[in-house]
């Protein structure tokens, strides 16, 4: 059998292949030859064959049949064989193959070989792909080699130890004694890898961290030598002495100094020195400066140093080199939380980076810009960000849009500005807006009451231009459904009112229904909007026609809605106005983060949250349960209101109706239980009659003193709960003018049967002496029948060791609190 061809020949041959198929053929032929050669157990040429196999593996062809051969090569005595064998093992084998365990013995022998290069090979392989079993077996050998004086082996042993620690963290203590004099090495290679080893150990175990803190002076000394030593040709990279080692040491110093005052103290000088002395003309210097800045930001450095660091970053931002700018933006992002003001100074540069051509820089600049937005710069920043949104790539649009919404919500200077901003986002990046923004936006629009006319007008105009962006269309159709009367009556104060007839509006909405661009969800929105307009517009016939057409639509959701609306026209026409009146203001339960919108009766938001509010509502005589949602708590008991039965049963039917409409833009039943017999006309009046506007009524109710005895004084302050005026929110302030603290202070209250009371938890149960502080507690009282508020209170506390109890009646509530 002729000698197998050389690696070089193979490569040459493969390169002559003109097509993929040709290449595959050649490789298959060669593989067959190699396989037969392996079968013949040919020792001489095994290394050659494995080399060829590795080449083919790199090109992407299967090479697993060579795994065992690699092991045989490792076991051979020749250095050449071992070398290629270990390489093959590293490339082809890994923990998942059982074969790799067979290597353990070979590696063990090689770790004790006489030739340092063989030992080096073994260490390298173990450090690359050693499994936990292998590491456990061989850790002792590695530890021995860590203490050798041969620097070549020592540095490899250090990195191998890192790998062992990663695989088997329990073995970390074993390496501890060997690390004692690692830092006193002269050889930079060993120094470098030792620092890596120390870093790894410190990151993994806080005990090690505190143990190694005592090395800080030594590290500082080494760093100092590196900077001051002047030119040393060995380690020089572009004029700086071993920058890699400097960077590593800085990183270790960062870990050691974090959160520790003493170490940070010791490092301050050297950090300042590095920061000022390093040359910034080349990438190398900048790498060191970058690392220094990160270290300064992380440890407890003094403020002068921090300012220096941020200034360095600011200089980076102006650098022409893109890499530096990228790196600066990344680190500014990390520091913006802690040193917000300092970073603000560079805001204009950051905003300029938004216009950079480089995608990576744009992304970083966008994130940083959002982090920098605050109440003062919101207008300017938003202008820039909206401009960015217009012109950026699609991959950024979704994130940018969400960011804009969040920022606008937090810092909007005025409602009109807010709505304008939202409109702008919807019209420019409408299709990239996230799905959950639609309910948020609707809720926002509902709450900004005075802007309804303006909003609906703008949305209408936007809709005339473009109906392809679904979120925009959905919000617009919802608003038109709600505020269509405002649109037609041309009431807008903010802007030039447009003249729109009812037919035009209905045309637009019907257009949405038939358009191919509308998704089923959008169609649902528009059908409901059309339905709502039946109570706001006068041309009911047209609406009836539309609704009945869709009663036979193929889309099940649309069909169901249409059928039910039809039923509303036919059998329940008397209820229609009540059902379709304006939505009250929705309250958010949480102000930060993802909000669960606490909806009142009947939902328009197609979100899953709502379905769970519906089951408690489908109980007879339970329109009052809707109030429960208003009160915001799940633990408020059912209110027994004295409800006349007729509306109750009507309510029941209504609610059954509601029960079927799960995700629809459903109609709203009457949220006015206190005047159940009150007329549809009242409800149809739209805005003015709705008790929605009392959120502004927080002023007006004067506070009162409820109790004042034995040094304990309790004051009541009042607020109206929004949106329901029947709920009074009372905050008690308890203060103690005696000379001792009142501990275990408990405030209890009871109200007559027609009221409902909810006590939230107190701020504390110790009232400090001598009026030094107050304990506050919030009480919510539901007063649906608007009767005079009376309360009996019971106070228990311990004063100077003896318990005190007292009862009192509070009758002097100001009339505004319950009217």
């Amino acid at each position, binding site marked *: 059998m002729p000698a197998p061809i050389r690696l070089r020949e193979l*490569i040459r041959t493969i390169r002559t292949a003109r097509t993929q198929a040709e290449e595959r053929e050649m490789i298959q032929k060669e593989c067959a030859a190699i396989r037969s050669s392996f079968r013949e157990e040919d020792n001489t040429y095994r290394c050659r064959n494995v080399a060829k196999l590795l080449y083919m593996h790199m090109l992407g062809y299967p090479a697993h049949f060579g795994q065992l051969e690699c092991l045989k090569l490792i076991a051979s005595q020749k250095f050449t064989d071992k070398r*290629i064998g270990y390489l093959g093992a590293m490339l082809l084998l890994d923990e998942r193959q059982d074969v790799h365990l067979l290597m353990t013995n070979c590696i063990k022998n090689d770790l004790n070989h006489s030739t340092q290069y063989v030992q080096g090979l073994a260490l390298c392989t173990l450090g690359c792909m050693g499994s936990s079993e292998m590491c456990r077996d061989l850790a002792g050998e590695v530890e021995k080699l860590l203490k050798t004086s041969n620097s070549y082996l020592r540095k490899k042993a250090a990195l*191998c130890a890192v790998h062992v620690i990663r695989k088997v963290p329990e073995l970390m203590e074993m390496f501890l004694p060997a690390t004692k004099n690692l830092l006193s090495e002269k050889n930079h290679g060993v120094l470098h890898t030792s620092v890596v080893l120390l870093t790894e150990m410190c990151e993994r175990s806080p005990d090690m961290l505190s143990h190694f803190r005592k090395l800080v002076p030594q590290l500082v000394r080494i760093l100092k030598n590196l900077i001051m030593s002047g030119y040393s040709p060995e380690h020089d990279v572009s004029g700086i002495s071993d920058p890699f080692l400097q*960077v590593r040491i800085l990183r270790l110093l960062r870990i050691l100094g974090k959160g520790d005052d003493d170490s940070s103290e010791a490092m301050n000088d050297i950090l300042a020195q590095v920061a000022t002395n390093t040359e910034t003309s080349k990438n*190398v210097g900048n*790498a060191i400066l970058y690392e220094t800045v990160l270290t300064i930001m992380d440890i407890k450095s003094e403020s002068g140093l921090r300012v220096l660091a941020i200034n360095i970053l600011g200089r980076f931002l102006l650098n022409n080199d893109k890499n530096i700018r990228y790196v600066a933006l990344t680190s500014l992002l990390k520091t913006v939380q802690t040193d917000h003001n300092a970073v603000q100074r560079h805001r204009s540069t950051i905003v300029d980076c938004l216009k950079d051509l480089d995608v990576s820089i744009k992304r970083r600049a966008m994130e940083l810009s959002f982090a920098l937005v605050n109440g003062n710069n919101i207008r300017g920043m938003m202008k820039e960000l909206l401009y960015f949104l217009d012109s950026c790539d699609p991959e950024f649009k979704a994130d940018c849009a969400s960011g804009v919404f969040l920022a606008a919500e937090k810092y909007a200077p005025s409602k009109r500005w807010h709505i304008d901003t939202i409109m702008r986002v919807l019209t420019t990046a409408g299709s990239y807006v996230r799905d959950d923004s639609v309910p948020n936006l609707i809720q926002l629009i509902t709450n900004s009451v005075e802007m309804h006319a303006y909003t609906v007008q703008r949305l209408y105009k936007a809709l005339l231009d473009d109906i392809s962006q679904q979120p925009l269309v959905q919000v617009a159709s919802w608003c038109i459904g709600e505020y269509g009367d405002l649109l037609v009556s041309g009431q807008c104060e903010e802007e030039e009112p447009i003249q729109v007839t009812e037919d035009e509006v209905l045309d637009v909405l019907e257009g949405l229904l038939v358009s191919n661009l509308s998704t089923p969800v959008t169609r649902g929105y528009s059908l409901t909007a059309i339905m709502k307009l039946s109570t706001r517009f006068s041309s009911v016939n047209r609406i009836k026609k539309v609704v009945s057409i869709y009663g036979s639509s193929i889309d099940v959701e649309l069909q169901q809605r249409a059928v039910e609306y039809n039923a509303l026209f036919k059998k329940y026409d008397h209820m229609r106005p009540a059902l379709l009146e304006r939505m009250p203001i929705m309250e958010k339960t949480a102000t930060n983060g993802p909000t669960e919108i606490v909806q009142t009766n009947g939902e328009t938001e197609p979100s899953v949250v709502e379905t769970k509010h519906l089951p408690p509502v489908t109980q007879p005589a339970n329109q009052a349960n809707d109030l429960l949602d208003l009160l915001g708590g799940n633990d408020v008991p059912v209110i027994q209101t004295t409800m006349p039965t007729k509306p109750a049963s009507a309510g029941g039917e209504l609610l059954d109706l509601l029960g079927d409409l799960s995700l629809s833009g459903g109609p709203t039943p009457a949220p006015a239980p206190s005047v159940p017999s009150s007329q549809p006309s009242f409800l149809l009046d739209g805005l003015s009659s709705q008790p929605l506007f009392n959120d502004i009524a927080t002023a007006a109710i004067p506070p009162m003193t409820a109790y004042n005895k034995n040094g304990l004084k309790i004051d009541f302050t009042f607020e109206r709960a929004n949106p329901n005026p029947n709920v009074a929110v009372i905050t008690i302030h308890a203060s103690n003018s005696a000379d001792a603290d009142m501990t275990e202070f408990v405030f209890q209250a009871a109200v007559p049967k027609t009221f409902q009371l909810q006590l939230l938890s107190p701020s504390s149960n110790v009232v400090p002496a001598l009026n030094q502080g107050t304990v506050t507690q919030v009480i919510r009282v539901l007063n649906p029948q608007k009767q005079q508020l009376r309360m009996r209170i019971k106070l228990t506390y311990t004063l100077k060791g003896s318990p005190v109890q007292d009862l009192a009646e509070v009758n002097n509530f100001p009339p505004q609190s319950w009217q």
Partner: protein
Amino acid sequence: MIKSILIFNNHGKPRLIRFYQYFAEDMQQQIIRETFHLVSKRDDNVCNFLEGGSLIGGSDHKLIYRHYATLYFVFCVDSSESELGILDLIQVFVETLDKCFENVCELDLIFHMDKVHYILQEVVMGGMVLETNMNDIVAQVELQTRMEKSEGGLSAAPARAVSAVKNMNLPEMPRNINIGDINIKVPSLSPF
């Protein structure tokens, strides 16, 4: 930690691939293709850092690359490595290759793939930087190559056999036997 080191040319053909984390073979090829796709789109005057490439796993990683003539050197690292430092490391690696191969070019990498692996082994081990001093690296590689050569090297047959043949004293054998033109004259046959 360095997760992988890839060298490929302007058409995406791999010249060296080294993964310091386990990936199945087809996954490796997919990663190479995806990385090439991302890196080749980049202009020459943008920054050398890329995020993206979900295949290599995790959001913690970046691609740091440098483009030299026809080759892309791509290092995929996680957040524990300094980005600017890795750029310098790539430079050191390339300069070392230059020293070992005397004005290295793509062909050198193609035909001496194993040697490139050995050089890389002296620079990066187990995903961590081992040595950055070019002279040290070159010296160590030299010594090891000499050891290999003394054993006959990878591609050669046992060295002794070769040198034996070379030293064989064979008598001069006429190599060219010049026959010259042979004119074959066909004798005229007398007609009977």
